[in-house]
């Protein structure tokens, strides 16, 4: 927005402000951000928003169609499932579960990954090459296989499937951090800090880490979409969240039984899942191009 400027001083936005300005120019990305914020709000305020208890079974109201259907009612906006549970409440709680858990997993994987990546980037020789080879082999194995091994050892359950996903998410953070640290270490501002006598830890924490924040956020959005897809896929296969839980993947697999007579049972949870992943991906894409365009200034 052009604003009348009384002073002749030039304004130089900070890098963060630049990113935001670039991001704002992309309307689709802004739409994605609004959607994402909506999902965060749902995750936090879910008990206030949901009209019913997600596990409340009303035997009189089995398989009520959604309200836009001719036979639907206004009490259950998204209809009910085979046990008379309100789908809107279940989808809301499911969003909370899937989205909240995914965020937790990403944060955990990010902390571990950045730590390991910093070690790999700052060190040379055997330690770094050992780490690389181990991570490469983990990355080559499909998540679902890791999940199957862990579940076979520990038994099915949400927590066990979470371990599998964290294990699959960590390598990309390590690679990202390591490559970034490697390229920054040869730059002059790091050299200046090193000449001042900064230790390796200080170099990483004070000089390199602050510059890495935005790339990490971008990587985290990518990891978030993978994590959402994985946790719901495991829930769908009955390897993760188990039946009465309202995790979105588990909801879908429960909906299959009545899919033909009540297709809204799989259409609505799946749609919510899809919207969630799309918004995360759009925000990630927008962030990436904003970061790229910022460097052009």
């Amino acid at each position, binding site marked *: 927005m052009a604003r009348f400027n009384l002073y002749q001083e030039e304004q130089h936005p900070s890098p963060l402000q630049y990113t935001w300005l670039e991001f704002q120019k992309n309307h*689709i990305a802004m739409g994605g951000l609004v959607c994402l914020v909506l999902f965060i709000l749902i995750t936090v305020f879910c008990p206030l928003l949901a009209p019913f208890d997600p596990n409340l079974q009303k035997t009189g109201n089995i398989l009520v169609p959604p309200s836009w259907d001719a036979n639907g009612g206004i009490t259950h906006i998204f209809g009910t499932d085979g046990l008379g549970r309100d789908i809107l409440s279940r989808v809301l709680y499911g969003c909370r579960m899937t989205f909240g858990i995914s965020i937790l997993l990403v944060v955990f994987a990010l902390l571990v990954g950045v730590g390991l990546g910093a070690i790999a980037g700052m060190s040379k020789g055997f330690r770094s090459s050992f780490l690389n080879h181990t991570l*490469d*082999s983990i*990355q*080559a*194995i*499909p*998540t*679902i*296989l890791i999940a*199957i*091994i862990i*579940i*076979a*050892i520990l038994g*099915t359950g949400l927590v066990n499937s979470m371990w599998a996903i964290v294990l699959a998410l960590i390598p990309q953070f390590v*690679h990202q951090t390591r*490559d970034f640290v490697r390229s920054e270490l040869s730059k002059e501002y790091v050299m200046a800090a090193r000449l001042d006598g900064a230790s390796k830890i200080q170099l990483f924490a004070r000089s390199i880490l602050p510059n890495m924040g935005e790339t990490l956020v971008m990587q985290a959005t*990518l990891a978030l*979409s993978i994590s959402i*897809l994985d946790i*719901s*896929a495991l829930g*769908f*296969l*009955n*390897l993760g969240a188990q039946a009465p839980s309202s995790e979105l*993947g588990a909801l*879908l697999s429960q909906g*299959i039984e009545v*899919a*033909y007579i009540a*297709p809204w049972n*799989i*259409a609505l949870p*799946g749609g919510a*899942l*899809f919207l969630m*992943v*799309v918004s*995360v*991906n*759009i925000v990630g*894409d927008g962030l*990436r191009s904003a970061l790229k365009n910022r460097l052009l200034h």
Partner: protein
Amino acid sequence: MLNILLRYTNLIIITLFILSLLSFALAYLFPGDPIEIMTGLKLEELQKLQNQSVNIGYDPEGGVLSQYGHYMSELFSGNWGVSFNSGQPLYEEIMQSLPASIELSAYALTISLILGLPLGFIAALRHHKLPDYTLLSFSVVGYSIPVFWLALILILVFSLHFGWLPLSGRLSLIFDVPNKTGFILIDILMSDIDNKHAVLLDALRHLILPTLSIAIVTTTLILRITRRSVIETLNSEFIQAAYARGLTTRQVLVRHGIRNALIPILPLLAMQFPTLLTNAMIVETIFSWPGIGSWLIQAIYQQDYSAIQAGMLAVSVFVVLFTMSIDMLLRLTDPKRKKVERGTI
């Protein structure tokens, strides 16, 4: 050249050795008796066999090292134990289901390459114009769609609502095709049954929905990778130099653009292999496709630990061999390539 070959052979052997160690360790990690998990037989049956003085190499007093040695020698002789549940030899079961998975993924990958590469080029050449935006939004949608939801919707629409395509399996039960290679289309073509055309048509109709569900996701991945690579190539200096020499756009593309843009695509594609396999395994379960993915997931449901152990080893060896050979191929063909490149889609 020889140096690279030797290094990769070395790497593959070490990785396979570690995998075998891990697989051996799984027998101890899974709940139950290790010997039961490795053989798939119950302890009483083993002792009965031992009493009948059948030499099965069962030696409970031997140390871990000798156990590992026996395990490896049995593995190499094709004796992978039997399944807890079906009692069938695992080697044969795996050799039947692995080709089915490879077949499904290969068709899906072929379709995605045929569609994804040209679309990626179109999007990149019309960068920041309408085709680019259309294709890009299509790709974001396809890339975010959960593959199991997509498969369910396809089933609902095409199998249940319209009834055009079959719901599950590889072939109608009325047909009986002898199993030779495990690849259904090849088996049909090789066999000498009546109505070959009808059988082939039926197999193809069964293939459409599962292939499509995997291919939609993979196509969008390839589209994004190609688009990014082409845009980066077209912005590089040798392209500008080519324009400066007065070449037309078509000449620049054919002589310099396409070949250089294709080089970075392959390693990024290879990195998407685990995603493709995960999707294939999920889709197999939904369509009851008798592949290794649905076989493993069934094994988990039934707590068939001997099957899980053998299946994991087979799949991970396959994945390692595949990724490493692609890596080696890239190293051999691309002299610029020093290290494994990593990128984002």
